[in-house]
């Protein structure tokens, strides 16, 4: 999407003006409505949530972006979930505090059969992808890529620590070029000096496994600080420098 100076703010209850919506090259292609937008027949589009209206002209999609605290699941999202209990066929997991449980089939892992099903205990942390979301059914997760059958890094997260961040921050961290597109430079700077593994869940959870607990804590706290303080790249550099000095790797 080309840069646009106008980033329209939309508010629930008011129709979104036709001039803001993308004009498809092919008039037969329908407009797709993403999160936070609804269609009111016959031809009005209104926002259901306050935020910035984002438009993808190529895909002909509109959606509303905002940084809400509670994550709303969407198919294809990567999430970090906690195992609550195991049943005959599936695990019951939780992706947000107090929210309805989600399902993960025992066979939704790489290279498993009925005889080699994974053993996940209550409290285990799982990195998974959202497979299906339906308001009338329970959300289902998978721990492998359905098209290749490979795990692609999904599965149980052993060791490490979980940190809470805002869903908006996790979206930024998961961008393909998180530095150029998301304005996150700290990971690249820290990776030059430290060894750590990191998994980002769009549900606002961040899992980090550093070589020591101290390093894990330091990285997690730094990312939370960037999230809360809306630090720019320059401030992130300073923060990373201070952090590395504190743990003696500066």
């Amino acid at each position, binding site marked *: *999407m080309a*840069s646009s100076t106008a*980033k329209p*703010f939309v*508010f*629930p*209850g*008011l129709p979104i003006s036709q001039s803001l919506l993308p004009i498809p090259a092919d008039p037969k292609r329908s407009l797709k409505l993403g999160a*936070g937008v*609804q269609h009111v027949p016959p031809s009005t589009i*209104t926002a*259901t*949530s*306050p*935020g*910035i209206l984002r438009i993808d002209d190529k895909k002909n999609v509109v959606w509303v*972006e*905002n*940084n*809400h*605290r*509670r*994550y*709303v699941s969407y198919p294809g999202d990567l999430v970090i979930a906690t195992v609550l209990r195991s049943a005959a066929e599936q695990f019951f997991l939780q992706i947000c505090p*107090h*929210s*309805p*449980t989600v399902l993960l089939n025992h066979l939704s892992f790489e290279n498993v059969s009925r005889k080699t099903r994974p053993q996940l205990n209550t409290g285990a942390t799982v990195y998974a992808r959202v497979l299906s979301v339906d*308001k*009338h059914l329970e959300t289902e997760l998978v721990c492998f890529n359905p098209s290749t059958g490979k795990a692609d890094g999904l599965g149980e997260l052993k060791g490490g620590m979980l940190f809470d961040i*805002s869903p*908006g921050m996790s979206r*930024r961290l998961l961008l393909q070029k998180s530095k*150029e*597109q*998301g*304005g996150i430079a700290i990971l690249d700077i820290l990776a030059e000096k430290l060894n750590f593994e990191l998994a980002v869940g769009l549900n606002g959870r961040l899992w980090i496994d550093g070589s020591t607990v101290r390093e894990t804590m330091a990285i997690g706290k730094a990312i939370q600080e960037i999230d809360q303080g*809306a630090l*720019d790249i320059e401030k992130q550099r300073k923060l990373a420098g201070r952090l590395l000095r504190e743990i003696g790797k500066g």
Partner: protein
Amino acid sequence: MAHSVELDVLPDADGSCRFSMGAISVLASINGPLEVQRRDELPEEATIDVAVRPSAGLAGIRERFFEGLIHKTLKQVIKTKQFPRTLIQITLQITASPDIDAIAGRPHQAASLLYLLPSLLNAAMLALLCSSIALSNTFASTVIILMPNGEIISAPSIQQIQTAKSIHVLAYTLPGDLILVESEGSFDIHSWEGCLITGKDQCLGNLSDNSNPASAKALHTQFRELIEARTMHSESWRQNIDV
């Protein structure tokens, strides 16, 4: 009476807000969609649970009465059909309320304290706008009083409320629909219509008189500006990035 608003005051709630107006202060928190208890579960829509807590003592009949009115009003703006079999929990804690009964010499239990209602409703509305719950609309609520001499006063002080002949609480949605009217006292149809017009001006801006728009910003405009500022802050990292 001017009001002041603080958004996201509670770190763990999905949406929260402190709404203060004069001597009234309300802390609102919204959580949802959450897992619902079996007995409260609705198959086609979300259950809305409103809890009003007084500044002192236990919640009683008056708080139940407020809860009923707030529930009815919020149900009209929340898209409950989007989250079937879930719970949306709304807690409204009154942190400060004027000690009107002590001055009036009435027993505390007997007063309905209707003038607290707009603060409760506005706090709930702003907290909802901070949460991720889908809304079909937004509203703003205000209190209007009718004096014995027939004068209509918007945003009255506590002293004025005490001497009022009747008190009216109104809530208007953004397109200008009236979604809540609650009146107390004696009044006639003409003065009531006058109250409606004054209330609509308070909530939506002066529609009849465009000559003096700067005098007082409508509640809706103020709410919108607050939420816009909040969104712009969380999106501020985007400023130097060409996405």
